[in-house]
């Protein structure tokens, strides 16, 4: 049987990816340039027995997906910059209460209302530090329509596996562009479900670390009763200020992602082996970068591309390794140097890191990258 093929927009592919992963609940508040995700969910979710709710605002939407997830559903919300800012308090709640959900943020110009229809990559640091306090952060940055589908599935898998909110952050160009997509058959991409409790309800504790760093999560309505709060909590879910418990719990919450970095990180190296100049890029700018790398190689410049597919956790160790062999890094990005700073932070000054920054709503043109390569060569 031949596979189902379609010509789809990135946002549409995201919604289909979510449903493939088993998502049965969407709550959101429409915002350009993410609205098509809500549109497709409103049409497709009822067909699989799911629910779509347009909430009164972004905060309500984020709260609704946490609630749905606690009731056992795989839940999704989608937004863009201003909506992401509003959701941040509740994202932190999801982190501390350890609730698996997926947040798709289609990046547009900011801060504030910024440029609603203009592309951007300026929410990358907000994915890690947008909500206050120390917390785990997983952020995926797909670069094509097919990859949006695949990475949305992976986002649900990681959320379920590590019991934490996961963000998918395509820039507006990737979210709005259209390409051919081949739908995987059911079962072709693994779909992970959260671990259910193995103990009876009366013995269940929602943060019982005797099961490891990621305690099983029971579904409300299935007979298991437990307390959920945004306060620092004990293993039974009730608040505590006992220093050793708070310290240990905070450390565990961050550790469950940090200790499993190898499983979560994903990147692609293109002609990096012998490269003197390595471009570090993600999303649509990685496509400009690949174009520039090909053009550079034709002109005898030894350039390579390090394409991030997972942005957080960041591949610090690999970046440090590469930095020992290269003359320079270039980070083309649609912000004022957010990725540049992260690269600098992990390479111990081994090589200069040049930036090409756009916050004018224009993509980074391959020509600009090529020009910079010639300058630094």
């Amino acid at each position: 049987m031949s596979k189902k093929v379609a010509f789809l927009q990135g946002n549409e592919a995201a919604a289909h990816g979510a449903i493939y992963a088993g998502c049965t609940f969407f709550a959101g508040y429409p915002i350009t340039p993410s609205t098509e995700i809500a549109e497709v969910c409103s049409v497709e979710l009822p067909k699989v027995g799911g629910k779509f709710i347009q909430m009164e605002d972004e905060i309500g939407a984020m709260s609704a997906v946490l609630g749905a997830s606690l009731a056992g559903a795989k839940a999704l919300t989608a937004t863009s910059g201003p909506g992401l800012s509003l959701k941040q308090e509740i994202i932190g709640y999801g982190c501390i209460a350890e609730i698996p959900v997926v947040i798709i943020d289609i990046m547009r110009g900011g801060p504030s209302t910024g440029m609603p229809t203009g592309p951007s990559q300026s929410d990358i640091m907000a994915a890690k530090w947008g909500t206050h306090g120390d917390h785990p952060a997983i952020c995926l940055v797909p670069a094509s329509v097919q990859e949006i589908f695949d990475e949305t599935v992976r986002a649900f898998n990681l959320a379920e596996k590590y019991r934490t909110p996961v963000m998918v952050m395509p820039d507006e160009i990737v979210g709005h562009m259209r390409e051919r997509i081949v739908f995987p058959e059911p079962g072709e991409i693994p779909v992970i479900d959260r671990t259910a409790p193995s103990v009876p309800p009366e013995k269940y504790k929602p943060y019982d670390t005797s099961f490891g760093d990621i305690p099983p999560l029971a579904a409300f309505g299935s007979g298991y009763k437990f307390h959920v709060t945004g306060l620092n909590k004990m293993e039974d879910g009730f608040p505590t200020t006992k220093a050793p418990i708070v310290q240990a719990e905070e450390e565990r919450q961050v550790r469950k992602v940090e200790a499993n970095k190898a499983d979560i990180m994903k990147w692609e190296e293109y002609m990096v082996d012998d490269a003197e100049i390595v471009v570090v890029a993600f999303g649509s700018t990685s496509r400009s970068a690949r174009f520039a790398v090909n053009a550079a190689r034709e002109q005898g410049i030894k350039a390579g591309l390090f394409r991030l597919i997972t942005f957080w956790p960041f591949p610090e160790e690999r970046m440090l390794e590469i930095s020992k062999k290269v003359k320079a890094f270039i980070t083309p990005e649609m912000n004022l140097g957010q990725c540049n700073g992260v690269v600098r932070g992990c390479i111990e000054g081994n090589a200069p890191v040049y930036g090409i920054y756009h916050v004018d709503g224009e993509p980074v043109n391959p020509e600009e990258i090529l020009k910079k390569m010639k300058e630094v060569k």
Partner: protein
Amino acid sequence: MRYELRFSGAGGQGLITAGIIMAKAASIYEGIQAVQSQSYGPEARGGASKSEVIISDGPIDYPKVTKCDALLAMTQEACDKYSHDLKEGGVLLTDSEFVPRTPEGNFKRVAFPIMRTAKFDVGREIVANIVALGAMVALTGKVSKENAEKAVLASVPEAFLELNKKAFSMGYEKAMEAQK
């Protein structure tokens, strides 16, 4: 080979749809690769709007136009704004009634009254984008007339199949004539 097209005009004229159909014709029906992207202002109607399509027999990295091979401009504003990177030897299609001034340069110019053709020859102004698409298919030769027509018919509401079919062939023929 990478081939770059840009469909431009005023917001609401359906140029994004025209671009999507061209890309769909290439990637689904012709079996080569295509990427469509768009850029638009906050206005629902009016303002300059563009839709870009890259067609290639190999993988497409950069999804936007670098040097435009073929440009459609339905309005003077779009022509002024989007014709700067038209390639030498490329093609410029304009609506002769709405674009009195075309830029200097060594490329093929084709002009006919696209909106008027839609309104009077096809019968509805709303299909001007499909008239323009038919003309772009004829002028660029990157997808076959048959495959493009299949993509048109797969993309429009059922009640308007005949209207769009007529618009598409009318545009195709007008461009062939205008080229002579």
